[in-house]
């Protein structure tokens, strides 16, 4: 048992921090051909090895773990990175895990940073049981025909290939299809989220696909998708923790310098204690993030417990820290004049995606019925990753 980061993790984190602090603002200032995407930044991410980080070595990756992705994601949150890192790597992981050699071929371009992916799953404004997916693919004369719609697909407007989850018509089960978003019958409406990131809604009308579009065996696909959503969720939690750390630090700094009634506002006890409570929330968020990161590839009950716990706790901390950071910045906090606004928006977006607090509370309670909550975290597990990488 050891929860302190290893030397190489500290190095990874520090190199990410430095790269983003020194390089990323330049990338963002350059006029972007496509909203939410800087090609130069993306090339930088590829050079830093971040695209390969969490892919298995068999497809050219570095075989890293979600803990490493979490480290990177935290720095992304701190630097307000908007590029679709998570959709690309989580989709790539699915292709690596479920695809055959032919399907793996696309990963070379992904690793090189020249091909973007997105995972199109959700169809309603909130995360729901995957069994309710209505998009469907019918098998007809050697091809698949896809009909349906997806909403708020992260990175969907930028993606060169989409992974689309669909019900397999007439045969039961579900499939993940690799689709060219420019194929006939695909309508894609890209938009930017409040955090500046790319999203898209899309419709599929009689989109025909070759048999090779179907990724992996169809019967057990949902647990893999659920696991991929959880990996995304925990990386987004890390992103939020990165953002809230910057916000708290900025608030403390502001409180030391902003003078009202002849004193810095950081000397008023009510505000001092408020900031102490923010620090407590930050510590809690970091602690539960670590649990989620360490369990991101654990057997599903353990994973769900950890990821949903992290999602609930970090969303609550994000809301408190975000709202109080704005409040303590006073008038300037509610404008676009200071970075505090952008960080608050990022945390607000975080709260809205991939299932709200109540969704994850129910999920945590559900897994609780299996007894998994009754034991402490310090266990002697045999690792039986079912749907992990």
């Amino acid at each position: 048992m050891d929860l302190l980061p290893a030397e190489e993790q500290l190095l990874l984190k520090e190199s990410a921090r430095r790269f983003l602090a020194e390089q990323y603002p330049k990338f963002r200032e350059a006029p972007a051909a496509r909203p939410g995407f800087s090609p130069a930044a993306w090339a930088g991410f590829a050079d830093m090895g971040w695209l390969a980080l969490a892919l298995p070595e068999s497809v050219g990756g570095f075989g890293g773990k979600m803990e490493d992705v979490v480290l990177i994601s935290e720095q992304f949150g701190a630097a307000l990175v908007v590029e679709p890192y998570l959709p690309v790597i989580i989709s790539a992981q699915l292709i690596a895990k479920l695809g055959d050699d032919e399907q793996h071929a696309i990963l070379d371009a992904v690793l090189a940073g020249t091909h973007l992916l997105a995972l199109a799953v959700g169809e309603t404004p909130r995360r729901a049981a995957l069994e309710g997916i209505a998009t469907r693919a019918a098998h007809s004369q050697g091809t698949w025909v896809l009909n349906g719609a997806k909403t708020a697909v992260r990175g969907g407007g930028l993606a060169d290939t989409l992974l689309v989850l669909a019900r397999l018509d007439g045969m039961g089960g579900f499939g993940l299809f690799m689709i060219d978003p420019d194929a006939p019958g695909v309508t894609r409406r890209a938009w930017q989220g409040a955090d500046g990131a790319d999203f898209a809604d899309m419709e599929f009308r009689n989109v025909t696909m070759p048999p090779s579009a179907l990724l992996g065996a169809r019967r057990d696909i949902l647990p893999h998708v659920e696991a991929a959503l959880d990996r995304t969720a925990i990386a987004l939690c890390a992103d939020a923790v990165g953002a809230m750390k910057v916000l708290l630090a900025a608030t403390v700094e502001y409180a030391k310098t902003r003078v009202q009634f002849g004193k810095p506002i950081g000397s008023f006890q009510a505000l001092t204690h408020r900031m102490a409570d923010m620090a407590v929330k930050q510590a809690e968020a970091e602690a539960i993030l670590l649990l989620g990161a360490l369990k991101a590839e654990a057997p599903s009950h353990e994973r769900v417990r950890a990821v949903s716990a992290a999602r609930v706790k970090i969303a609550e901390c994000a809301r408190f820290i975000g709202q109080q950071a704005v409040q303590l910045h006073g008038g300037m906090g509610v404008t676009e004049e200071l970075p505090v606004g952008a960080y608050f928006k990022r945390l607000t977006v975080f709260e809205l995606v991939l299932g709200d607090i109540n969704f994850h509370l129910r999920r945590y309670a559900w897994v609780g019925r299996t007894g998994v909550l009754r034991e402490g975290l310090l266990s002697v597990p045999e690792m039986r990753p079912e749907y992990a990488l």
Partner: protein
Amino acid sequence: MNKMNLTLDEDAAAFREEVRAFLDAKLPPAMARAQRLTTTVFSEYELSHPWHEILARKGWAAPDWPVEHGGTGWDATRRYIFASEMERAATPYISPIGLHMVGPVLIKFGTAEQKKQFLPRILEAKDYWCQGFSEPGAGSDLASLKLRAVRQGDDYVLNGSKIWTTHAHVANWMIALVRTSDGPKPQAGISCLLVPMTAAGVQVRPIRTIGGDHEVNEVFFEDTRVPVENLVAAEGQGWAIAKYLLEFERGSVMAAASLRRSLNELLDRALAIDIDDPDIEYSLSRLGIDIDTLEMMELTMLSSLSRGEAPGAESSILKLRVSQLQQQVTEMALQLAGESALRWETHRAFHEICSTPDEDANKPALSRYLNTRANTIFGGSSEIQRTIIAKQLLKL
């Protein structure tokens, strides 16, 4: 009838019916919808101006002015009913600066000339006023304001800046607090000036709100000349005028009707989307109870006002609760919208880009949530209100 009661007497009930009938007849549904989709505190000028004109034609634009200046002569209960019914119907908000600040200040402190020049134009929506009190270094601590007005001949020459000036970019007049002298007591050097926004040296810089709206501004003055006739009362009276306004505003934060309308929209929404989440019902009930409580506090204050009693720290309690509840309402709307609220819209007004009930509910939700964070900051932050309550009510 028992003395304590929640029942409108016959006359008041009839008055309410009259107001409702007027609103039914004169408030265009599109105008009400536009107001419902507004994400700012004030309504945009394009929205409020026509409504102001409709009210002015009816003679109902300035219920709290004396009758001789165009007021309605209503008692406190009628004014409350009128305001509540407007909230209930979602009329646009008319900017309060002219009608509720400049008007009362001039009526109390202004010269006959100033009254004659300004009051009718305010009443008839011919001038549009903004208010210049806050400065970058003087937020909650107003006494430290610095905008300097130096007398040179028949003019004051202004140098400095104001901030958080709502609608400075559309206003043609500003009521400003300026520093006309220094001294050991900073309050004593503050004066009140009426400044034409068209004067030379006035520059308006938009400040975009966190929700993406252009509602407030920073206003710079560089050697701006204002005739001395535009001084309100004597030099050094600015602090007294500000205090009068504060007194005058006390008890005017009445928001239960507007919150109840928002709650009704949330109830409709929750029914429409049929979320599988028992917590939503608990939250909506809590909100309803909070609004019932607020309404009782407002009606109690109204009862006191009707007896001529001046509200004290109760105003601070209302301000605190109203701002908190306004934030909770927007949080709830955001929760109901879910990922539908993610999209960042730069176009305003929202009623021009929404075309379904879903869009009406979801698109403005995020901007409104973000902007409403300001409600516990402006107009005396929650921290300031707590200090007032502790001092005045608890004598701490």
